[in-house]
């Protein structure tokens, strides 16, 4: 079993937002995340960024005072 590097993991985490990963990729990704704090941060940050784009669009420029 090839456990992906951080670079490969970052690509897999990104692609999770665009396509369904293969079982093999998902297992490798999980194995890496268990041992890597940095990539776990990235996972959370990618999710945050996706929601931030939506929030940016929805944001009210003139909130009631």
């Amino acid at each position, binding site marked *: 079993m090839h456990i992906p*590097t*951080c*670079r*490969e993991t*970052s*690509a897999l985490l*990104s*692609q999770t*937002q*665009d*396509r369904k990963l293969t079982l093999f990729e998902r297992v490798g990704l999980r194995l890496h995340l268990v041992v890597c*704090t*940095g*990539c776990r*941060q*990235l996972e*959370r*940050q*990618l999710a*945050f*960024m*996706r929601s*931030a*784009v939506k*929030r*940016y*669009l*929805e*944001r009210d*420029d003139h909130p009631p005072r």
Partner: protein
Amino acid sequence: MCNGGSNAMADNNSSRADALGVSPGEVEQFRGYLMRYALLQLRDQTSAEDVVQETLLAAVEGGDRFSGKSTVKTWLTGILKHKIIDQVRRQSREQPLLQGEDDERSEADVIDGLFKADGHWQNFPANWGDPGNALENKRFWETFETCARLMPVKTARVFMMREVMELSTEEICKELDITATNCWVMLHRARLSLRECLETKWFGRV
């Protein structure tokens, strides 16, 4: 006097259309939203203003086509999306994704610069704490806009098609005439660039 009667009926019909939520005043309240949407994708104030203006006009003129099945906002977004895609087609004819080598090469370095030769991070992504707090901060959104603007042109184009217009990889490939792999590589690059920028300019400082 028969004429008077039919006019009154026409007025009735138009006020019914207005009641569905397509009067100029009602579409106008979405201008800010539509502008942010168009500007993120097109990155050009004039083009963005143009497509938004066309959208609002089309909405008011074609108000009778609003079925009331979706919200006015969703309906407007649909019209805007078509107009933006026309613009993106024009942009990508003028700046095709697979040409303009300089830009592409410097973009490829983005990923190389973030990792060591063995695939480990040069600098581990920092802990952003609870990033949700930033969403309430006006200055965070200024940073967000800056970082979006700093993304290289073609990377940003693909990223915004995915995240703002919510097109699938397949749709993006078709529009820009690139392969799926190419698309994923560009989205990876885009997300890591944006992440890096937000961390440097915002989360690293909190």
